[in-house]
């Protein structure tokens, strides 16, 4: 039988994969992909809690998370294109102006 815990454990695994990507990746486009993975993992947890608690509020939060993810991509990709035009690279190390 699939319980709430199964969904929460799946959500944790997916979130950890996204977190691993966010710490490991140096390419900014790949960092965006990892962010999407983390947002989706949280959405699964919201929908599962909504189902097993019998309350629709979790689904509402998932909708707003989707809206925020969409606008984040629009602005982030614009900035990324701007950075690529200026510096011809989207490596994270190229953003490091101050050496320490």
């Amino acid at each position, binding site marked *: 039988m699939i319980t709430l815990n199964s969904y929460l454990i799946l959500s944790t695994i*997916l*979130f950890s*994969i996204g977190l691993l990507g966010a710490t490991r990746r140096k390419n900014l486009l*790949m960092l965006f992909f990892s962010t999407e993975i983390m947002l*989706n993992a949280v959405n699964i947890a919201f929908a599962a809690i909504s189902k097993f608690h019998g309350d629709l*509020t979790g689904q*509402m939060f998932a909708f707003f998370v989707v809206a*925020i993810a969409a606008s984040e*991509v*629009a602005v982030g990709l614009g900035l990324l294109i701007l950075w690529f035009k200026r510096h011809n690279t989207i490596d994270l190390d190229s953003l490091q102006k101050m050496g320490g």
Partner: protein
Amino acid sequence: MFEVVAFYLFAILTIAMFTITVMTKNALYALSSLAAGMIFISAFFFLLDAEFLGVVQIVVYTGAVMALYAFGMMFFDSINDVEEKIANPRLTFLLTGSVALIVVVIFMAPIVGANIDANYPMGIASQYGGVTGNVQDVGVVLFTKYLIPFEVAAVMLLVAMIGGIILAGKKMDRDIILDTEEEQEHLHAFVTKKDGV
């Protein structure tokens, strides 16, 4: 039985796809596997009786976000392998593992709000004389309690769209592939001559 099989099948598929996204060196493989993972995630929403959320997941993520990434990819160098200089690979695994452990402990902790009654129970639409179903329920809750956040989200999306257009649309008439000064000058002269200036 069907639910158990579907859950484990899609769980394995989703984890595999996202692992490919995180681990691969090829940007196009990462994009494709991410899109596949998004579609597999929508299966969980259908399993959880959140049909509207599942449809939104497919439409917004694989329809809009992935298409935007695919168009953005045309600006970047996506044929070559992604080369990354990772200073300390063990540290990232250690950090991620410890954070995952903390999240598991948080989830396993006794839930304080376990005996709170549901404010917006499933099937709320039937109280208003509507047809019972997830889409009707979502409509009732979204346009009563969450009306203001809904409007604010709409304004936020508009602002993001305008911001994206302004940021990415600068100097769109100049080709970024022709990177020598001479070719840029030539292109600029051609454009001005064509406009009749």
